[in-house]
């Protein structure tokens, strides 16, 4: 709704660019990341990994390693069989144990692990472990994997198809049959992923006395990790404590579950000594949580009278060797925005999730829509080009009109609000679109390959589990809680259940509380609790935490105000309903009589039991747990009100291709974005910038390459090309603000919108550039080699 709900004359913090509270300790090197944690008696873990994509493990001999100086414990698949369950997975039943026991399923799969006095000693000990393998035929092509004669990734399953279903929303066959035009194309999205600058790390302590497990780690979702540990080890969740350290980015792809289980087993075997495991970059690249979206698409759209009447998408999604990374969720999330910003009445989704002998896929920022929108937006351009309609105007003609919100899309989700035409206009005028087309005409006359991409997408924000119901996440609701507490001196502490990972959420909490109680931001401290102390919390993910934590904090402030007001009423000798909080004081609504500051009321509660009204506890503190209202369970076609908000963006990208080298240069990048009310505009801008950079990486540079035998060819950051400053254009940005009617402050989720849009926009621009040559590039990333080859085809 809006920021006007705050009880102040003038807001000093929220909605403004403020300096982040996180910065000082980060800038001085004082923030404690997981590799900075040192516990008494701590051992260091190193992991032995499979060199084969698919192999039988004939035998493992660890005796030489165990005899080395400094080695405290060695674990193998036999220990995993004895002590743990396979990982939970989506789809269910496709999880592996943390250490392979009889079969290795992908290169880099953990086989054994050592805990020793130093990391170097542990790594040396790995070389003294003898493993005898019998290589098996690997499964690497998902289409072959689906055929009857393929070897099996998991023998017990009897198939490599983890999941197959066709979802039909509306009379899609009739729409195709009756259409004036039908366009069909195939697309390939190669594996990309998160690659935060800090890899995963953990310190695990298995207390042999209490039989409790304590886990520190660079963990994105601490409460999920705690439940995962309890399930894997078969111990009560009340005996597991997870404390997430502040960490160096995550983007959904921090990974780490196997590392936690392995380090915990080593701690158990080493008599309870804490064990640290820090994943190195090569481990992360080969077998960590950094691989996502290995997809083969076929898509069709039906167009009549310039309007899209049906969309059909067939996806074969290669999830790699197990469902342990929850990569399947990324195939389900497109349901939340299947038809993008368009009023497309019918749709179909033919979805296959397939196992191969590659590293299991994990979430990555965007969680699935980036490839989906790449496909949808190429189809929009293919149709516009064939029908000779300007691509921007084709989109405009198909936009959901501004007066139709809240709007339910065929795949079931509801978009809260928007004004897509206005956002398009803002982007086109920022980019100087008409002039760009004139420049392009000139460039084409000179034989230059210049192209313009105009792309619009919707960013589902504030995820809910029901979005993933089709692949086996039956819950509805993702509660996020906060406790606001005032001490006897009037200082305010907010307790939350998540750590800092870069989005500035502690700043957001401070802004909101400081404005609510009319104090300086410095007067508010934000404290992270571990999973056994915190109120229900999921943490960052799914463009959710900004909205969720601001709603929780606001609720807690309001609840606390209710308690304080009872005390203030007694002190002011006025009826409670005549008193309100305004600018940090409890005052009479008619402004007669005195005023009592929040600090004074709190101090009275704690220090003057004689003045405390009957029935009020001496506790100036309140907890509020928020979950998105109005979410619905998925129906039998997967339709649910899942994501609470729908932000929308239009990106205009101009590229020029060097036909001799295939190198793509981005000449211009303009963005208009509507993510509702911006609680900290500088932070929103940072989310856009970072997400655009990752989108450009996915569109042009980044790729996890495997050879045909399933060997990964990417093992260093010299192979996996994360863009540097010199690959990222300076962007122009403008904001449109359509407040969300469903969130307390009118904000919408905003962390993923740009990566939803950027790859599609860059690819549309590239294909626009090559259009005069009559060729189409349907595979990302558009590496120079792929672009060059595509241009060659035209010349043939």
């Amino acid at each position: 709704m809006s920021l006007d709900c705050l009880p102040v004359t003038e807001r000093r913090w929220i909605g403004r660019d403020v300096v982040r509270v996180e910065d000082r300790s980060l800038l001085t090197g004082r923030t404690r990341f997981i590799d900075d944690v040192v516990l008494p008696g701590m051992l260091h873990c190193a992991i032995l990994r499979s060199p084969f994509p698919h192999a039988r493990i004939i035998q493992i001999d660890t005796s030489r390693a165990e005899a080395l100086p400094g080695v405290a414990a060695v674990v193998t698949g036999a220990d995993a069989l004895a002590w743990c369950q396979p990982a939970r997975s989506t789809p269910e039943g496709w999880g592996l144990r943390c250490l392979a026991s009889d079969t290795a399923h992908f290169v880099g799969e953990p086989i054994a692990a050592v805990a020793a006095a130093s990391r170097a000693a542990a790594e040396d000990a790995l070389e003294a472990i003898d493993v005898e393998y019998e290589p098996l035929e690997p499964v690497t092509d998902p289409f072959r994997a689906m055929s009857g004669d393929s070897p099996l990734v998991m023998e017990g399953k009897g198939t490599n198809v983890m999941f197959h279903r066709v979802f039909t929303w509306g009379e899609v066959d009739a729409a195709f049959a009756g259409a004036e035009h039908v366009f069909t194309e195939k697309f390939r999205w190669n594996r990309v992923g998160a690659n935060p600058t800090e890899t995963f790390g953990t310190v695990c302590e298995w207390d042999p006395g209490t039989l409790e497990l304590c886990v520190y780690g660079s963990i994105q979702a601490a409460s999920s990790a705690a439940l995962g540990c309890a399930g894997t080890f078969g111990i009560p969740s009340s005996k597991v404590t997870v404390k997430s350290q502040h960490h160096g980015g995550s983007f959904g792809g921090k990974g780490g579950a196997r590392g936690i289980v392995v380090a915990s087993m080593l701690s158990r075997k080493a008599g309870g000594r804490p064990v640290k495991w820090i994943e190195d970059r090569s481990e992360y690249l080969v077998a960590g949580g950094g691989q996502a979206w290995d997809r083969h698409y076929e898509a069709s759209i039906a167009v009549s009278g310039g309007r899209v009447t049906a969309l059909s998408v067939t996806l074969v999604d290669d999830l790699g060797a197990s469902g342990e990374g929850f990569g399947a969720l990324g195939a389900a999330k497109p349901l939340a925005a299947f038809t993008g910003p368009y009023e497309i009445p019918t749709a179909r989704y033919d979805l296959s999730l397939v196992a191969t002998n590659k590293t299991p896929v994990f979430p990555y920022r965007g969680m699935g829509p980036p490839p989906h929108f790449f496909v949808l937006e190429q189809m929009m351009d293919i149709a516009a080009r064939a029908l000779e309609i300007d691509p921007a105007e084709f989109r405009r003609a198909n936009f959901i009109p501004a007066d139709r919100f809240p709007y339910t899309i065929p795949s079931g989700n509801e978009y809260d609000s928007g004004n897509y035409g206005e956002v398009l206009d803002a982007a086109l005028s920022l980019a100087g679109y008409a002039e760009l087309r004139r420049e392009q005409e000139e460039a084409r006359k000179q034989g230059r390959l210049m192209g313009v991409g105009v792309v619009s997408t919707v960013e589902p924000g504030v995820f809910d589990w029901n979005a993933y119901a089709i692949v086996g996440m039956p819950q509805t609701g993702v509660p996020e809680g906060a406790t606001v507490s005032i001490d006897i001196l009037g200082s305010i502490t907010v307790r939350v259940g998540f750590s800092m990972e870069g989005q500035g959420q502690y700043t957001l909490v401070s802004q909101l509380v400081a404005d609510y109680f009319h104090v300086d931001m410095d007067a508010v401290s934000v404290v992270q609790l571990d999973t056994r102390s915190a109120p229900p919390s999921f943490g960052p993910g799914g463009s959710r935490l900004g909205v969720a934590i601001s709603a929780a904090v606001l609720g807690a402030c309001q609840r606390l105000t209710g308690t304080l007001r009872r005390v203030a009423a007694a002190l002011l000798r006025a009826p409670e309903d005549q008193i309100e909080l305004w600018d940090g004081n409890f005052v009479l609504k008619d402004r007669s009589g005195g005023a009592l500051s929040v600090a004074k009321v709190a101090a009275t509660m704690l220090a003057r039991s004689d003045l405390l009204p009957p029935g009020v506890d001496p506790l100036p503190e309140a907890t509020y747990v928020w979950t998105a209202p109005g979410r619905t369970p998925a129906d039998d076609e997967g339709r649910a009100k899942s994501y609470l908000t729908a932000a929308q963006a239009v990106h205009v990208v101009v590229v020029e291709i060097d036909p001799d080298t295939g190198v793509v240069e981005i000449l211009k990048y303009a963005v208009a974005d509507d993510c509702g009310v911006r609680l900290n505009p500088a932070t929103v801008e940072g989310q856009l910038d970072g997400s655009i950079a990752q989108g450009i990486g996915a569109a042009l540079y980044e790729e996890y390459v495997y050879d045909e035998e399933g060997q990964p060819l990417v093992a260093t950051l010299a192979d996996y090309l994360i863009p540097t400053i010199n690959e990222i254009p300076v962007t122009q940005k403008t904001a449109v603000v359509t407040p969300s009617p469903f969130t307390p402050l009118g904000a919408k989720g905003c962390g993923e919108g740009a990566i939803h849009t950027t790859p599609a926009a860059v690819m549309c621009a590239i294909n626009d550039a090559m259009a005069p040559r009559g060729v189409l590039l349907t595979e990302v990333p558009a590496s120079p080699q792929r672009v060059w080859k595509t241009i060659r085809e035209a010349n043939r």
Partner: protein
Amino acid sequence: MSSTNGTRPVRVTVNGTVHEATVEPRTTLSELLRSQLGLTGTHVGCEHGVCGVCTVLIDGKAVRSCLTLAVQVDGSEILTVEGLAAADGTLHPLQEAFSAEHGLQCGFCTPGFLMAVYALLTEKPDAGEDEIREVLGGQLCRCTGYQSILRSVMRAAAQFRESKLEWVR
């Protein structure tokens, strides 16, 4: 002078404090700083020389501490991120600029950026955008998309040209 188990003594000055330590030949400078001297502000992102997260100054020059062996720095002066802010906690102007321009999100890459830029600007106070971009091109950041980092550095560079003395540590 190397002992029978291969370890060697090294003497280094880090942020003005003299340290003596015994290291293995394979110990890297980043390990010496982090594990032996307790200076964990220097981070490690790849250990193979690409990300630049581990950048520190050795005798005024920016280097990758993950690719430098501890034995190589015997007798050197090292500056790490912990040496930038004043003793009373006042942030260095470069740190102030990063905060003001939102040049960091998760902050894991930040010490590397700060040290690389500090080395550039102390050596070439008049560095223009091209030179700044060239140096920043050796550092990876996965969060910010670099726009705000560039703004931070341009702001710091302008400030530095006006008041060099406050800068040098």
